[in-house]
């Protein structure tokens, strides 16, 4: 049997019967679950979009949203995916200095995105779009807010990778740690692309 060369072992960093690292398999599964989470939120948004417009208290997203601001935000997030790729490449090469730069850049871009989102939310509130102002407000803030929360979680995840590498520079798991954080980060970015398309472009 092909498997016999991969004895099962417990703990982390374990290449098991499937030939994939267990943690990686775990993160992929988690991402699968998260994908359905966002699918349900996005479905809710899409269900209510026409209902919102048909109501007397409708708030037209086109009038409230600043497509330029969010385009910049989207660009920030996409750029962070790029720096994430560079960080992983650097750590694979063993270039720890560049790795640190790219990883911190990724986190920084993530936080700038969040800053932009906070700015966007406050602007919207000042213009009368709130959680309770309309179905648009209800669905928009919950969807993008939960996405923002996930960006925050991703950023904290990457920071924890950063500190772990600082603390245990010789850990043989470093590359995998970075790869997993990156995987999740790319997922969060990808969700933003979908949300951006659904809310801002269509």
């Amino acid at each position, binding site marked *: 049997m092909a498997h016999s060369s991969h004895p099962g072992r417990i703990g982390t*960093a374990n290449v098991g019967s499937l030939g994939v690292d267990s943690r990686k*398999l775990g993160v992929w599964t988690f991402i699968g679950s998260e994908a*359905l989470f966002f699918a349900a939120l996005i479905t809710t948004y899409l269900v209510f979009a026409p209902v919102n417009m048909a109501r007397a208290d409708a708030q037209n997203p086109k009038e409230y949203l600043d497509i330029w601001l969010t385009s910049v935000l989207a660009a920030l997030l996409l750029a962070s995916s790029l720096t994430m790729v560079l960080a992983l490449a650097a750590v694979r090469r063993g270039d720890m200095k560049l790795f640190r730069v790219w990883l911190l850049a990724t986190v920084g871009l993530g936080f700038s995105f969040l800053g932009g989102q906070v700015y966007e939310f406050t602007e919207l509130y000042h213009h009368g779009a709130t959680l309770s102002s309309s179905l648009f407000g*209800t669905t928009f803030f919950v969807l993008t807010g939960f996405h923002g929360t996930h960006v925050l979680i991703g950023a904290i995840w990457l920071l*924890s990778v950063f500190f772990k590498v600082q603390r*245990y520079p010789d850990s043989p*798991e470093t590359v995998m740690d970075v790869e997993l954080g990156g995987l999740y980060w790319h997922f969060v970015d990808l969700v933003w692309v979908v949300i951006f398309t659904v809310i801002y472009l269509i």
Partner: protein
Amino acid sequence: MAIAQGHVGHVSAPPATTVPAGLAGWLSTVDHKRIGIIYMLAAFVFFIIGGIEALLMRVQLGTPENTFLTPDFYNQLFTMHGTTMIFLAVMPMNVGLGNYVVPLMIGARDMAFPRLNAMSVWLFILGGLMLYFSFFAGGAPNVGWFAYAPLTQKPYSPTFGVDYWILGLLLTGVASIAGALNFIVTILNMRAPGLSLNRMPLFVWMQLIVGFILVFAFPALTVAQIELLFDRHFGTRFFVPSQGGDAVLWQHLFWFFGHPEVYILILPVMGIVSETLPTFSRKPIFGYAFVAFSGVAIGFLGFLVWAHHMFGVGLGPLANAFFAGASFLIAVPTGVKIFNWIATMYDGALSLTTSMLYSIGFIAMFIIGGLSGITLASPPVDLQQTDSYYVVAHLHYVLFGGSILGLFAGVFYWFPKVTGRMLDERLGKVQFWLMMISFNVTFFPMHIIGTDGMPRRIYTYESGMGWDLWNLVATVGAFLMAASVLLFLWNLMVSLRRGAPAGNDPWDAATLEWSVSSPPPPHNFDQIPVVHSRRPLWDHKYPEHAGDGHGASAPDPLVAGFEQPAIHLPSPTYHPLILGVGLTTLFFGILYSSIPPLSISLAVVGLALVAFAIVGWVRDSHKDSPYAAH
């Protein structure tokens, strides 16, 4: 027995992980076996509580116009009973058995993520406790276990009950998703050499399928609950029809989760009887591939039938026809499994142990539940039967007659492995027959009163409808069922102390968990076995009856043919528990959002605990890395 133990001499001494004694050892454990035991004990406690709630309701319904309970308390009871049995009893019982048995069955030393495993069990218990705390905090939820909108909105449900329902279940939801992920990775990635997917025990197969169902179904419930939470606390209007919200959307989200959920409850049990029936028939399962793939088919189709819970909602004939068709279709793989089980027994050498009796009882009752399911899947018929006691009968035939009876089969089967002692068979058989009879006395009449027009979820009914006699019969039956459960409890306590010693392999079984001592050592296997067939232990014991029917007879599976990995167990840690407590505290903070000082302090404490736990967790994981220098 001499099997795996015989190899001890060849490998390094068992690991020297220090496990704290007593309670501390349990609170900090990361051992899948201990975690499994905690799951099962907690699930059993919740099962008893849910049962007491049921008895109270049965007393109230025993006679017409009874005034034993107030209406509102009755409404709290049926909500908590349903929620408890589904989320806090049957699900965690399945998870607990899986936790204990799956790594042993696949020749692994633990689950893939032992600390995540610990976090899951604590979050499940804390979520359950949080839900029950509502009784002392202004009243339990009183909206039914599926909490239809807009009754759950603040104006109609002003107490904190619904909030406890949301947040308590969100905690158990996190536990479930983390647990499912753990099962998936463990099963896919931790199998012993040679244990390919098509050699996996069927119990493991079913746990794998359930893992996937859970991971994909739970997010829908999570989203629905979050949206409801926002409606109640932060002024949104997802489910507020008067402001454009959509009451039916709740049902879609809920049942997109809810129907797969019923398979989450039944598939592991189908896995259990797919182990017990072959063992007690001394035959292999009939049609291994059919049983495994019908499980996959059920898991997949389960995502396409949710609206059969909504035939009366007015989705239109076309949609109803689609969901009816898909629901009929799902009967086919279910039927296949039943035929395969019967064929497994056919021409076997049956030993009617208590476990076997429960397995047979499971099949017998599940058939009835399946058939009443067929009538309910027909939209026109459903319109007469939905929301009536007929549905109550149906769901108890599949959940009690199905899941619970099957779980008893599993408990009687694996109890010797877990404790090293046998449960008393004589008591067990008495209990089985009492259970079978009282179960049918309780629930069969509900088909009749449902057909006679008795709606569900009513705390009282008038006399003269023809329901009085059957309701009284059901109430009597319920108390007999309680007696049967008490008998089991007695058996449990007596056998724990004085049960006959079990030995490694009391049932002459076929799978790997029976090759190690009872209870197994902390590291499970001194030597990881190499597997060559579906029945490794059987083939070892009966080489002349080995093989999986395709001619080839296999080499002895229990002789290691490769370099053994060093035994390495993760150290005990409190961080998963602390994380759970932190998250629960945070959730209490959210719940009391209307009282800012309380809310904020709870949230801050909660977040601090979470942060502390995560930092510690990262340190633990570094320390336990197989590569880390010690």
